[in-house]
Structure formats: C-alpha cells, structure tokens
C-alpha cells in the first residue's frame, strides 16, 4: 500500500501495482487473478511515463 501511494505521488497510476495473497493450493486463483490484472492493465494502456524517450 505504501508503494502504491508512492507511485501515485510521483504521478503513476497506482492500479499498475497489484498484490494478491495466493496460497500454494489455490492454483485456479492464480489464473483468475492474472486474467483480472491483465484486463485492468489493458484498460490503463501502455505506461508512457516509463518509456524511454530516445
């Protein structure tokens, strides 16, 4: 949460960082969370701020 707030502070979308607690026995949840995260990131679009402008 601290890191998210830091990201927000310097002007990054905090949604780019997501942390989930998944136990070793929750295989299905991994896929589910990955799908969900991918969608959220896709919605945000590419991270232009961290792209090297060369």
């Amino acid at each position, binding site marked *: 949460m*601290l890191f998210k*707030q*830091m990201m927000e*502070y*310097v*002007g990054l979308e905090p949604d780019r960082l997501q*942390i989930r*607690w998944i136990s070793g026995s929750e295989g299905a949840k991994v896929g589910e969370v990955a799908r969900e995260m991918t969608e959220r990131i896709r919605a945000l679009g590419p991270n232009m*701020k*961290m792209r090297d402008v060369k």
Partner: protein
Amino acid sequence: MKAVIDNLRREAVRLLANDEVKMVIGYGEGTDASRTTPYFASTPEQSAAFTWGPLCANNLAKHLLDYRYEDTRLAVVVKGCDSRGINRLLQDLQFPRERLVVLGVPCGGQLDRNLIAPEIPPGARLQGIEDTGKVYVLVTDKGRLSFPKDRFLMPKCYLCETNMPVVADFMAGDPVPSPAREGSDRTAEVNEIEALDVAARSSFWDNEFSRCLRCNACRNVCPACSCKECVFEQAVPGWQQSGIIGSKANSLPENMVFHLVRMFHVIGRCVDCGECERVCPVDIPLRLLYRKTLKDAHILYGAGTPGMSTEVQSPLSEFSPEDPEEFM
C-alpha cells in the same frame, strides 16, 4: 558555543588518552567560512581541532559504516536529527552498541549554506561563532556577520523534531531551545503535492527527476542506506541483463526508478535528517519524497519518525493483523 566545543575536545582527549576509543568522529574547520568538514581524531593531540556550531550540517552517523567490520571502538558527534540515524544503525545491527560512544551536542539549528555563503565577504576567515539566542554571529577577520535564526536556518530545522540527541553517552552542553517554528506541520509540503492533480504531480516530479545526475550522493550520504552492496550496483543483477533499469544510463524513467526504489527501500529507516537534499548538486527536493513515506507510514501503521528509540520496530518489519491491506 565555546563551552560546548571545549567540553567536546576534553571528552575526545579523555576517550583517546584512556584508549577507550580508537577514533573520534566530529567536525573540523572547513575550507571556507560557511562550512565545516568531517574530522577524524586518533590521538589526543588531534582532538584540539574539533569544532562545533551552526555550520555542522553533516550527519556523521554514516561514517560509522566504514568501520562496521572492524573491532575498534569509536566515538561520534551527533546532533538531534543525526542521533535518530544512530538508533537506526543500532537497530539494523549495522554497528554494535558496545563499540560506540555517542557524543551528543545540543543544536539550536543549522545555518543554510546556500543562504549564508553569498553574505560572507570573499576570503573571510572564520574566527568564532556566537549564539545570541535569536541570531548566530559569525566572527570573521572581515567583520561580524549576523544571521537571524528565523531566516537563515536550513528548512529542515524549522520542522525540527528533536534538537537534542535521542541517544547519547555524553552530552557536551545543556539543552538549547528547538529551532522548530511553532505550529509547523511536517506534512504541509507533502500535502501540497498530494493536492495537485495527477498530471501536475507527474510533471512536477518529471521536471525534478530529469535533472538528476545519478551521482549517488543522496544514497551515499544516507544513514538509512547501509547495504554493503547496493541493489543498483550488484555485480550481476538478473534484471539488468534484459534491460537498462537500474543501469548508469541517465534518462527520466531510469532516474525515476532509481528514486522510487530508494524511496521504498528507506521506509522505516529514513530518519528525516535531510542529508540527501543538502548534498544533491542539482537541488532535487528529495525530502519531499521521503517525507511522503513518513506521512503514509504514520497514517497506515501509526509509525513515528524512525530512530526516535531503539524499541519501536519499523512498520515494514513487523506484522499486525490490524495492518491495512487490500491484497488478501
């Protein structure tokens, strides 16, 4: 001021003469009238060169790390803010308490070199410093220079939390009034940035980070940065092989990563001594970054400024079921 210096020198002589410590780390005369320099005395005779006053901004706690793997006992001079760094190093087991003698000095605020240097006549030699309560007077061979404390101190001093050391084996002087401004709010500047909209925040920091030279001065002066080998210069970091994140390349994203990683790494360790901001050659307001982590750690975990005591654990090194989270 004079009495404090005499006490310091006397104690340094005693420690060295009795072989209680191998070296005393303190302040010595600088090469111009606006500053001092870290000074290391290994003999009682060398102790005569110790000085103290409002030109001693350096946090000497960092120098202890150079001797952490030796078995010598050292003494170090600390101000209130610096002393929090001592506590943090002790807590992180970076330096053993039994090998350390802490010499505390009462601090009435440090003069901002950027503000006073232009007022000092070129070539003036410092002869002494007087503290009249509201004003520091630099006595030089080119006249007496008055610097009212309400205008010429370092910004951090007006927000001072502890102007007397929180840890000391020896105090070189009686308590003096804190330079903190009444009703000052340590989060005020952070709040201002937070109040900006996301685009404005982003461009504010882009502007600051684009100036960064990546000289590592902020890291190297930082008492919270105690790693023997920094993540930014590991011999073969896996993630460096497929990109230049964390490399020596200077670009806005690189610089931002450097500062974000540093910001995260010093949470719970940053004692807000302000050395990073003082040494930055391109004036990046680094304390605005670390103050933000202090504020958030306080709000989220109720954490106070690190280093106030060795009893309180850092918020990121202990777990409580009450900790706020959004990932379970």
